[in-house]
């Protein structure tokens, strides 16, 4: 039974929430529903300073006034935000000092996901900040990074230990009231990752976060903040899986990237959340706001492979504020069965001689709908801005859809903007050709899809590219024939 409002207030007053409401079950989870008290309770539970609490409350108040956006080419039953629990943490409160202390069941889950920490630890070059159901439970390689002055930790920890950095940058790229989901995230974000690369430092390894949703009925609100100080470089990997669920799960993350002068951030995502069953039942609702800010001569590159989620609403964007800054977006979005994706990017050219590249590959199968939506905006100040966009769609079968919505707004005469788009279909002839060479239909599709996606796959770090390639194959299994 859920708590009533009255009971909840009482609980909050008696501070019992510090020890969790559900001490008898595996994780401690807040009762469902959202109000200002819940927002304050989350902040308190995470031992946040007062400014953070107020920041969240401000966001919540803005959110209350906002309406869910309806312009995207997606159709779904809107989540009831009062039926979601906004906080869920693994039962152990303490951080682990070594793997031996970690719950064996948790380790088992990681192994199933193919991310054994033991193996990862040996695999030099990848440090992992694992987010399990909203709260970080393990961090590796922290010390190696610390030697270079690199901070890589959970955002909760960053709020406690590096408040000045967080306070300075959080919400500067994605303001609290940016959009409905960003406002919601700002109010209730449970955890996420924080990364700071000091001036002139080249991060020696790929920073990698694996996170997943594993608690039915709990929303997931990740918040990521990456700051690359002047002249620094970092490559950040984000990958996720989710177990089977019958209910829809809401996910509304916010990722903010800040690339100061001459800095470069490469942000790669492989997203494989539960897409719903073959009948279109269940699946994750993914409403994400990702945006990066480039100062002078800085570069931000987004690469994403999106195969999961029932609904994807996601537009990783670049604000090219500084002169000579560069924004890139490379995307593969796969939809199968009843999945719907409305994804793309925004390239906002503010500085002079700014450049952006957009390569989007949409693959639709089954009864899915796949839309590219992109905005290229050239400000009046942005002399000699250049953009190249290429949007390719690949269709499989006769019941899916591919849509392209490119928006171009140029307010400077010197702007050069190119847009190319193609739509093709995997033909019976292509499949038969492969079959005749001894390649079965599943493999043939994988081959054709990988060929189609090659330009984007090539942008991923090696180990991620292999994983992504496998994912493409799995996602399209049984989609033809």
């Amino acid at each position: 039974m859920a708590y009533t409002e009255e009971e909840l207030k009482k609980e909050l007053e008696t501070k019992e929430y510090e020890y969790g409401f559900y001490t008898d079950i595996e994780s401690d989870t807040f009762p469902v529903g959202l109000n200002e008290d819940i927002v304050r309770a989350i902040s308190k539970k995470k031992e946040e300073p007062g400014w953070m609490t107020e920041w969240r409350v401000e966001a919540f108040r803005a959110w209350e006034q906002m309406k869910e956006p309806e312009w995207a080419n997606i159709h779904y039953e809107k989540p009831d935000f009062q039926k979601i629990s906004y906080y869920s943490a693994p039962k152990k409160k303490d951080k682990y000092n070594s793997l031996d202390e970690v719950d064996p069941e948790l380790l088992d889950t990681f192994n199933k996901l193919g991310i054994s920490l033991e193996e990862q630890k040996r695999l030099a070059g990848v440090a992992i900040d694992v987010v399990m159901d909203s709260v970080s439970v393990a961090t590796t390689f922290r010390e190696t990074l610390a030697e270079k002055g690199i901070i890589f930790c959970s955002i909760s920890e960053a709020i406690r230990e590096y408040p000045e950095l967080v306070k300075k940058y959080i919400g500067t790229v994605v303001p609290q009231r940016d959009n409905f989901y960003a406002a919601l995230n700002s109010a209730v974000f449970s955890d996420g990752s924080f990364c700071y690369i000091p001036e002139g430092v080249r991060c020696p390894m790929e920073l990698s976060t694996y996170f997943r949703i594993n608690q039915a009925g709990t929303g997931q609100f990740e918040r990521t903040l990456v700051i690359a100080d002047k002249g620094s470089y970092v490559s950040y990997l984000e990958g996720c899986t989710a177990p089977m669920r019958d209910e829809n799960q809401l996910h509304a993350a916010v990722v903010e990237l800040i690339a100061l002068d001459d800095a470069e951030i490469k942000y790669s995502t492989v997203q494989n959340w539960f897409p719903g069953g073959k009948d279109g039942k269940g699946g994750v609702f993914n409403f994400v706001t990702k945006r990066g800010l480039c100062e002078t001569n800085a570069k931000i590159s987004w690469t994403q492979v999106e195969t999961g989620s029932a609904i994807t609403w996601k537009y990783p964007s670049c604000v090219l504020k500084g002169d000579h800054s560069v924004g890139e977006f490379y995307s593969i979005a796969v939809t199968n069965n009843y999945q719907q994706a409305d994804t793309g990017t925004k390239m906002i050219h503010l500085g002079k001689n700014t450049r952006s590249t957009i390569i989007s590959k949409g693959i639709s199968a089954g009864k899915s709908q796949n839309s590219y939506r992109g905005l290229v905006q050239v400000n009046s100040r942005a002399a000699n801005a250049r953009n190249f966009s290429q949007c390719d769609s690949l269709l499989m079968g006769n019941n899916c859809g591919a849509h392209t919505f490119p928006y171009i707004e140029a307010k400077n005469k010197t702007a050069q903007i190119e847009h190319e788009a193609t739509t093709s279909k995997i033909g019976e002839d292509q499949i038969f050709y492969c079959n005749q060479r001894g390649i079965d239909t599943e493999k043939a599709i994988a081959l054709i899809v990988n060929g189609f996606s090659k330009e984007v796959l090539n942008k991923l770090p090696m180990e991620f590219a292999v994983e992504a390639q496998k994912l493409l194959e799995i996602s399209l299994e049984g989609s033809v024939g």
Partner: protein
Amino acid sequence: MLKINNLHAGVEGKEILKGIDLEVNAGEVHAIMGPNGSGKSTLSSVIAGKEEFEVTGGEILFEGEDVDELAAEERAHKGIFLSFQYPVEIPGVSVTNFMRTAINETRKARGLEEMPASEMLKKIREKSELLEIDRNFLSRSLNEGFSGGEKKRNEIFQMAMLEPRLAILDETDSGLDIDALRIVSNGVNKLRSKDNAVIVITHYQRLLDYIVPDFVHVLLDGKIVKSGTAELAHVLEEKGYDWIKQEKVSN
């Protein structure tokens, strides 16, 4: 090796092959000639197992086994190769990658390990030299932007790589200039052995000057109406198909 008995087949209820009998033994080269619409390409597609064609009667035996229930890739694994009249493009998939996948899938089906990279490389080098193929060509996307001649040469390169028991060359000569024709024919001739067989499907006698067949069959309206030796092709060249049509009528 291949035995076709009274084969009837068609597409969407329309019968195209109306009782084909054909026997091809190891070491032989057969040419199938006939005018447009006589069913030549249908025959090659049916042997290769293209799904849109329906076999309504008769049987195809390959190495004594009825292939009717076998999928196209399974027939390929058994050693049936089709050089396509119109090879399709697969963007982003290099010739090398495609060949590696095809070879390893076939090996897997035969219970073999993947071919070691060094062996693969050696083979690619050897076969590309045989067909006078530039190495840069192998890194290009399969058939994308290839000229007609390049496409056909690529088909024969694939045949050389896969070393089939039975190769069916469907109009391999169309779109080839005289130099390309010579290179392709030369390649095919070098690949001939006592263990494999080739079926050459063509409109014209021209190709048969280079790849000399042991037998020539004339396909007309879904039936083989005449069979003979290489000499038959010359007679056809001289007299045209009308001669056979008339002969058929008078019979």
